[in-house]
């Protein structure tokens, strides 16, 4: 039966995460953006919520409740607070979820327990490559089999680079198919340079050069069976679509509240159709994009190929978030252009959804 109501349990999760996003994440957003720093206390507090651990297998200390739909609900709420902080808080998903789904027994036993331990443990996944036509389904970073080893060569960027995110997962082409490899940060031939962008200022990211990085065969995610990297990319797209909806909702709400308070020509500007209709369009587009993200998440949970749904979801959500953020800056006028208000940051972050891939997974 078709239904659009989160379950009671999901509703509880939404309320909890929404409160955390408002009181902790949003409260820290501007300062983190200005200083380009992640507060450890915030990550520790977020870890207490168990958002990623809840999705991991019980056998490895997790909650055994993996659901892409729940992941999308959480991603939207956190990104409503702040995109960079949301990606950081959910960064464990980048390593933990692919290992849980595709890892060998050895990989799971070795890598998963840390994510449900007492301390926050970040993860990292390298998908995007530093060229204009970066394509997550067709990486140009190559993995070549050499005896009982793999040799990786290529470049990556936009790689979340939080302290302790070791090993990281690197997506590379192996004979025409994308596969993922566990790469220790101190691997010989791997160089990481700090990377900075228009948005996501608070998120540490790295540009990687892999120059003949030699890995044991056991470094291949899933061992001989490998991993379904298409599915990982689709999980990333759905997560990002939900985050784009969260960013858009944040910008929309600020514009709506500002328009109700700001007076011009003898009344609130929200009482003018030029502003009111713009706000109405924002609300409609945000809801449409959210439903597409939910549908793609639901499709992932059914286990089938969700490439089409994930592509539609991210394609709509990235356009909607950009238009809404831009509209919010416009509604606030000159104030929208200042860093006193958040929409200018929403606009910088929203533009990124055109290039982001797999910054979070559901």
């Amino acid at each position, binding site marked *: *039966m*078709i*239904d*659009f*109501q*989160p*379950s009671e349990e*999901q509703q509880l999760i939404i309320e909890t995460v929404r409160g955390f996003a408002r009181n902790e994440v949003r409260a820290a957003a501007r300062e983190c953006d200005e200083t380009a720093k992640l507060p450890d206390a915030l990550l520790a507090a977020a870890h207490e919520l168990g958002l990623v651990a809840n999705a991991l297998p019980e056998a490895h200390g997790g909650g055994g409740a993996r659901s892409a*739909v729940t992941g999308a609900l959480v991603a939207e709420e956190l990104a409503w607070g702040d995109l960079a902080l949301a990606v950081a808080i959910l960064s464990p998903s980048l390593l933990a979820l692919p290992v849980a789904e595709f890892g060998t027994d050895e990989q799971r036993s070795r890598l998963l327990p840390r994510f449900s331990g007492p301390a926050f443990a970040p993860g990292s996944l390298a998908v995007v490559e530093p060229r*204009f*036509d*970066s*394509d*997550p*389904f*067709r990486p140009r970073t190559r993995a070549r089999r050499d005896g009982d080893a793999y040799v990786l060569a290529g470049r990556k960027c936009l790689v979340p680079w939080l302290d302790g995110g070791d090993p990281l997962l690197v997506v590379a082409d192996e004979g025409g198919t994308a596969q993922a490899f566990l790469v220790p940060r101190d691997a010989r031939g791997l160089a990481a340079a700090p990377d900075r962008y228009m948005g996501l200022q608070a998120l540490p990211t790295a540009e990687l050069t892999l120059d003949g990085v030699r890995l044991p065969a056991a470094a291949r995610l899933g061992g001989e069976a490998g991993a379904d990297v*298409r599915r990982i990319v689709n999980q990333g797209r759905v997560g990002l679509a939900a985050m784009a909806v969260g960013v858009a909702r944040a910008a929309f709400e600020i514009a*709506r509240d500002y*328009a*109700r308070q700001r007076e011009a020509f003898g009344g609130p500007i*929200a*009482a003018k*159709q030029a502003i*009111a*209709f713009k*706000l*109405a*369009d924002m*609300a*409609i*587009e945000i*809801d*449409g*994009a959210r*439903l*597409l993200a*939910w*549908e793609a998440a*639901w*499709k992932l949970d059914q286990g089938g190929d969700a*490439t*089409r749904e994930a*592509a*539609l979801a991210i*394609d*709509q959500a990235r356009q909607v978030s950009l238009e809404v953020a831009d509209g919010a800056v416009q509604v606030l006028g000159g104030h929208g252009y200042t860093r006193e208000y958040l929409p200018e940051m929403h606009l910088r972050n929203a533009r990124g959804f*055109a290039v982001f891939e797999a910054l979070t997974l559901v």
Partner: protein
Amino acid sequence: MPISFEPTPSTLAAREHYNRIARERMRPISRKYDELEHELPVEWVDWYWKEGRFRAPGGASPGDATDGMIQVCVQAEELCWGDAALYLRMPTPALGGSAVAAAGTPEQRDRFLSRFRAAGGHPIWGAMAITEPGAGSDAAAIQTTAELDGDAWVLNGTKIFCTAGEGASQAEGGFVVVWATVDRSAGRAGIKSFVVPAGTPGMRFEGCEKKLGIRASDTATLVLEGCRVPRENLLGSAEVTKRDARTTGDKGFKGAMATFDASRPIVAAMAVGVGRAALDVAVEELGRAGVAVRWDAGLHARSAVEQDLMEMHGELQAARLLTWRAARMLSLGQRNNLEASMAKAKAGLAVTRITQKAVELLGPVGYSRKLLVEKWMRDAKINDIYEGTQQINQLIVARRILDYSSSMLR
């Protein structure tokens, strides 16, 4: 129920059932009745009256879970994928029926609606007449009057853009629900609705509009001159109250406007059907030439046409999901005023753009009357106008999200 996008078996059966009707009964005569404009599509109307209305979708057993109003939306989408104008010409109580069902007494429902379920007889129609030459979106400004004279209401005024108005006013057994004011000084509180049976003396059918699209749909002008209907044909209460309808229980104008919360998701679903028809043909024609959306293609690997097709798919699906959400809320008895207007605003604009883009993508073939794509572009535009224009629905959404009353945001 958790979040789910899985239709029930009965919805799937309904989709198949109505899609077959669309393919076999509507598409073959689509062009013919677009060209003949106002002529009654006899084969369609007769078939529907004699057989179609008694044929239920198979596959589902009684007691099976259903998607409720979503299933009604699926039916509207499939039939309008067939032909939106022929859908509007179906002999049913239509919006007049919705008004009687929503505001009428059990006696009125039986009196006016049961004949649509009875076997035999000739095709009949129901219709709703609100719009006037001087009052469209501003429905509270209507000038048609109703005066009580003994045991009858006497109606005077002119109604335009009345969908199915020819059939409903002319074929004996049908009816038109006419909006009129019993007290002009009372504004919207004075507006009531009256059931005017077909053939009532004083109701004159003046003719049909010549339109851009949905040409097979009879969009009538009806003139009411001393038109007397029995006192018991008033829907709802005769009392004129300016107090809040929610506290007095009087459905009144607000009640009448609330029927739009039920009809807008269906109109949005109809729009989605027209948009899908155009998109399907675009996909098929371009696919034959080897142009297809590669869903895993990177942004820079996509051609402009692929990007256009992706956006058409995305816009259409967003419109469909917003529509289903509004319908689902209706099934659950939740207030869906905001969501119904969101769906209608989104769907009306999305399919206007999708059908226009389909004509563009197909070049001279799309522009040609050999295919139906140009017709669907003409048909689609009405969805952004009737049952609340794009702007009226934006206004409703804006008021709701801002928590503004109609006097605070005009």
